[in-house]
C-alpha cells in the first residue's frame, strides 16, 4: 500500500495596513469608516500616553509594578471595536486600549496597579472580566462565559486575550479543547509579542506559527499583523460571526511586539537587542494609522497637537481620580471574602489590631 498524505494545512496571514501606511482598499472596504478610524487613532494615542504616565508614576513611587502596553494597542482595540457591547472581553493585562474603548474607566486600571481591588470592580455592563494575573488561566473563563451564553440560547460570545507564553500553559490547551469539542462561541486572540518576560517565542513554540496550535484542536485559525488595526478587526469580525452564527471557536494569532519592558520591574536590555526593538518601533500601530489618516486628509500636525493636549487633560484627570480616591476601609480585607462573614471571620476582622484573647469571651480574661 502506498503511503498517502491525509492532511494538508494552510494558514492565511492577513495584512491590510502595512508599516509604510500602504492600505489594501479591497480587504479593508467597509471595515472601519473614516470617522471611526480617527476615534480609534485617538484611543490608541491616549492609551499610549497613559502608559507613559503610568511608567512615571511607578518610577516616582506613586504606583506599584505596571505592565506597559506600548506597541500592542491595536489588537484589543480592534476586537473591542468589532465586538458587540455585551460580548465578553476576557483579557490578561496588556489590553488597556480595548478595555478603555469598552468604557472601563482609566482610573480602574490605574487603581488596580496602585494595589487597590476597587480597580477591578468593573461594572458588569462593560462585560469585561478583571485583570488576570496568573498566565493563561482566563481562557477557560472565556470558554465558561461563552458556554453560559449558549446554555441560555443567547448570541453573546466571548473574546479572550493572552500572550504567546500563555500558549505553553496547560489551561490554554484545555480551553481550546473545551471550546472546540463543546462548540463554544469563543474567539481566542493570541498576542504573539515575541517575549514572555525574557523567554523568547521559540522556547514557547517550536512550530513556525502559534496559529497552528488552534488547528490541532479542530478550529479555524488565522494569523494577522497585530499592529494593523484593520487586519485585527477583519479577523475578529470573521471569528465573531462564526462564533455567533455557528457557535464555533476561532484562533487568531496577532503578531505584534512588546516595545517596553515586561513590567516596570523588568529590564529588557538584559535579554534582547536594541536593534530588534528598533525594527519594531518602525512597525508601531500608531505610526501607520497616522500615516493613513494623513493620506486621507483626515489628520495633520495641528490636529495631532490638539489631540495631545486633550489627552494630557484626560489622563491627568484619571490619575487625579485614582490618587484622590478615599482610602480603602481596613475592614475590606475581610468584607469581600464571602457574601456573609462567618462569626470567626468577623471576629478576626474586629480584633485584627489586637491579640485575639484581648476581646475574647469573658471566660478567658487577661492576667491568668
Amino acid at each position, binding site marked *: 500500500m502506498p503511503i498517502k498524505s491525509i492532511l494538508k494545512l494552510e494558514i492565511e496571514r492577513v495584512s491590510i495596513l502595512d508599516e509604510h501606511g500602504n492600505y489594501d482598499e479591497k480587504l479593508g472596504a467597509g471595515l472601519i469608516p473614516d470617522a471611526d478610524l480617527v476615534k480609534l487613532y485617538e484611543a490608541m494615542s491616549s492609551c499610549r500616553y497613559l502608559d507613559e504616565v503610568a511608567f512615571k508614576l511607578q518610577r516616582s513611587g506613586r504606583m506599584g509594578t505596571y505592565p506597559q502596553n506600548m506597541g500592542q494597542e491595536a489588537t484589543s482595540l480592534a476586537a473591542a471595536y468589532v465586538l458587540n457591547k455585551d460580548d465578553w472581553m476576557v483579557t490578561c493585562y496588556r489590553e488597556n486600549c480595548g478595555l478603555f474603548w469598552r468604557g472601563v474607566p482609566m482610573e480602574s486600571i490605574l487603581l488596580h496597579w496602585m494595589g487597590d481591588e476597587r480597580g477591578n470592580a468593573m461594572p458588569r455592563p462593560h462585560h469585561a472580566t478583571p485583570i488576570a494575573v496568573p498566565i493563561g488561566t482566563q481562557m*477557560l473563563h472565556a470558554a465558561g462565559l461563552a458556554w453560559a451564553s449558549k446554555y441560555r440560547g443567547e448570541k453573546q460570545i466571548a473574546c479572550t486575550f493572552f500572550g504567546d507564553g500563555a500558549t505553553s500553559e496547560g489551561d490554554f490547551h*484545555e480551553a481550546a479543547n473545551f471550546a472546540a469539542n463543546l462548540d463554544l462561541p469563543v474567539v481566542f486572540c493570541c498576542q504573539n509579542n515575541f517575549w514572555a518576560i525574557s523567554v523568547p517565542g521559540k522556547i514557547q513554540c517550536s512550530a513556525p506559527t502559534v496559529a497552528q496550535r488552534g488547528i490541532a484542536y479542530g478550529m479555524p485559525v488565522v494569523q494577522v499583523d497585530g499592529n494593523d488595526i484593520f487586519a485585527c478587526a477583519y479577523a475578529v469580525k470573521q471569528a465573531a460571526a462564526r462564533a455567533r452564527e455557528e457557535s464555533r471557536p476561532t484562533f487568531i494569532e496577532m503578531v505584534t511586539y512588546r516595545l517596553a519592558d515586561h513590567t516596570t520591574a523588568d529590564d529588557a536590555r538584559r535579554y534582547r537587542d536594541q536593534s530588534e526593538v528598533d525594527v519594531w518601533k518602525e512597525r508601531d500601530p500608531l505610526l501607520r494609522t497616522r500615516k493613513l489618516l494623513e493620506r486621507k486628509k483626515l489628520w495633520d500636525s495641528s490636529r495631532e497637537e490638539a489631540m495631545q493636549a486633550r489627552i494630557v487633560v484626560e489622563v491627568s484627570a484619571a490619575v487625579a481620580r485614582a490618587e484622590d480616591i478615599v482610602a480603602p476601609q481596613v475592614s475590606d480585607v475581610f468584607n469581600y*471574602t*464571602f*457574601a456573609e462573614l462567618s462569626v*470567626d471571620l468577623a471576629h478576626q476582622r474586629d480584633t485584627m489590631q489586637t491579640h485575639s484573647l484581648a476581646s475574647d469571651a469573658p471566660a478567658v480574661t487577661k492576667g491568668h
Partner: protein
Amino acid sequence: MANLNLVQAINLALIQEMERDERVLLLGEDVGVNGGVFRVTEGLHKRFGARRVVDTPLAESGIIGTSIGLAMAGLRPIPEIQFDGFLGPAYDQICSHAARMRTRTRGAFTIPLTIRVPVGGGIHAPELHSDSPETIYSHQPGLKVVMPSSPYDAKGLLISAIRDPDPVIFFEPKRVYRAYREEVPEDEYTIPIGKARVVCDGTDLTVISWGASVLQCMESIEKSSRSIELIDLRTIYPMDLDAIETSVKKTGRCVVVHEAPRTGGMGAEVAAQIMERCFLYLEAPVQRVTGFDTIMPYYKLELNYMPDPARISNAIDAALCY
C-alpha cells in the same frame, strides 16, 4: 420519607435543585451517559438531557475553569472531580480564581459554584483515589469546605451548597456512599453550612470528627462504658467553633479524629481553637487520631493508615485516664 444511601440522597438533591433552578447544570468526566463512576449522577443525563448534564473533556483544570466562567455569567454549575487525588490539576483555578474573585473585584463578580469530589480511603481503590485533601482547601481563604457523613446531612448540605453564593467544595466520603441507608425526606430541606451536628450526647469526653471517620467513631463510642459526646463537624470550613466550645467546656476532654495526615491537619486547628476557648476547662490534652504524615498507602495497608475504632478507643482512654 425514603430509605436512601448517601449516593441516592445526593442524586435526589441534584434532581430537586435542577428541577427548581434552571441555572443549575452538572459537568465533569463521565457524569453524563455513564452516570458518574460512582453512579451519583445516575439517570440525570436521561432526565435533564445533554445540555444540563455535560460530559466534558478529561481535564480537571478545564472543568473548574469553565465552571468559573459559567458561574461568573450567573449560572450555578456543579462540576464533579472524579477522585480526591485528581483535584491537583484544578488547584490553580480553585485557589487563584474561584476563591479570590469576590475579593479581587470587591463583589462585582462572584462564583456560586459547588465542586463535588468523592473523598477518602477504605474502598480498595488505586493510588490517588483515596486521599483526604480537605485541609488544603480549608486553608485557602474564600472557599467553604463541606463533608457530610450521612445521607440525611448530604442532601440538606448539598442543597445549601448549591444555593450558596460562594464556592463550596463538597466532599463525599466514598466509604459511606453505600455503607448504610437512613430515612431521608423526599421534600427539599437545607442544612446550614457551618453548623455541626451532635451525633450523640455525652458528659465525659468529646469526640470531634467528620466524613467517614464519624462512622468509626460511632463504633468506638458504642463499645465504651463512658458517656461520650460525638460531634460531626459536617462543615470543615467555616468550622462550628461554638459547638466545639460548648461541648468541650462541658466534658473537659477531647479527641479529634480525621483521615487526613496529622501535621497541620484540621485536627490541629480544632486543638488550637480549644486552647483559645476552653483552656481553663481542660482536664487533658486534646488527642488526635489521624492519618499519618505519609503518602496514603496502596490499599493492602490502607486500613492501617486510617483511624479505626481500636485507635480511637485508645485515644479516648488516654484522654479519660490523663
